[in-house]
């Protein structure tokens, strides 16, 4: 168990903070592929996936809301399945393929889903949006013509304090219609 470094101050002379940290906190070297790009990093076992993504790798799309698995703004896809990244240890995802909201737009070109959120005012403050987009994306990947009820069920794990959900459901529904027309 880690204790505040009281005595450690004397013994760390000549070492970098990084070395001290490693010695006292048994870090693990892991590798993850995020949005197609492979990263190697060292994490303490207790580091949450969302923390590693944001603070270690700079993917700040996944937000931290509740840290208890309720709000869904930290949603990412791990090996193709959406999960809440505050409820998974980073070290558990060693070797995994991760997709974050940054991976949706191709070189800055928004996806039809993202455009639809913009058109239908599916966001206000935008805090819930990364998670909403990933949950909606997961729905549309398996169901190209969802009912409004199915859309609501698909975003059940994502809370929004601003929009009242109506416009989010509209945005997702319109995306499905648009993708349907294209076929």
């Amino acid at each position, binding site marked *: 168990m880690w204790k505040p470094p009281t005595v450690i101050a004397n013994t760390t002379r000549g070492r970098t903070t990084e070395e001290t940290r490693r010695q006292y906190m048994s870090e693990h070297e892991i590798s993850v592929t995020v949005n197609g790009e492979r990263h190697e990093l060292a994490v303490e076992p207790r580091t949450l996936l969302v923390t590693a993504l944001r603070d270690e790798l700079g993917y700040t799309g996944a937000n931290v809301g509740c840290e208890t698995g309720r709000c869904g703004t930290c949603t990412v896809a791990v090996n193709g399945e959406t999960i809440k990244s505050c409820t998974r240890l980073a070290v558990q995802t060693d070797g995994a393929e991760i997709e974050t909201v940054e991976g949706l737009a191709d070189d800055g070109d928004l996806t039809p889903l993202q455009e639809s959120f913009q058109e239908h005012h599916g966001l206000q403050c935008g805090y819930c949006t990364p998670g909403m987009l990933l949950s909606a994306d997961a729905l549309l990947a398996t169901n190209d013509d969802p009912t409004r009820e199915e859309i609501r069920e698909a975003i*059940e794990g994502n809370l929004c304090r601003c929009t009242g959900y109506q416009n989010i459901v509209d945005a997702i529904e319109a995306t499905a219609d648009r993708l349907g027309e294209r076929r």
Partner: protein
Amino acid sequence: MYMDDFEYYRADSVENALELLADHDGAELIAGAHGLLPRMKTGDESPSALVDIGQLSGLDAIEARDGERDGDPGGISIGALATHTEIAESETVREHATALADAAAELGDPQVRNGGTIGGNLAHGDARSDPPAPLLALDGSLEVRSPDGERTIAATDLFEGPFETAVADDEIVTAVRVPTDADAVSGYHKRRDPLSGYAMVGVGVWLRTDGETIEAARVAVTGATTNPARLPAAEDELEGSAVSEETITEASAQAGTTLSDEAFVSDVQASAEYREHLLSIDTERTLYEVLEVDR
């Protein structure tokens, strides 16, 4: 969020996981992390080491086994690492163990269903969980392995109290087993706690009928009580009775009568008395749904 520090080991087989558990004092298994991590964040649990079985292959298979053979009890086998999503979407579970499929589909939300496993859910013993009621109603069991070999834990022996189950610290649940019966029907009804989303009252029912008479019945509750439990008074009322509105009314009225007042959970959402009342109402609903009787 700062949890206490701990060591982390990733197991590459069930045998390896058993060794790692034995070698590290105070070590605990982790699979989906959806039961344990929330409790580590609040400080309710702080294991000195975690042994990760979440990535083991082959432990998530869902299959229907033909009759008894080579000591295998037959029925359905659900690998401990099967996620709630996999169970909710499984045709096999939906057909032969409907109550478990209902519970998986009603559990948490899509991300939680993708993240949590059935083995972790049942080993953890969180009395607000959904799967315990269907497991009891379906007369299921857990297959577990320890350094001493294998054993089976019947659902009725599993739940020992809040976060206490018969799965020992050095044991790994490998599969959930459920017997099948072509003449039986089952179902689960959940009343969500509006705050946590877990079951405030969850009722699982299993019935064998010839269409007119109920030949055998099992009814179980989760969420409303501090420990998931069978409801023998309701079962007695159902067994041998006609499939009718009257039978449903009488059995539902009996639902909580074998449980002591202390058995019911009382919290900010609902008092023990109210939960007992809801248990009757929800037993009635589940029976109407499962027996497909019109009201």
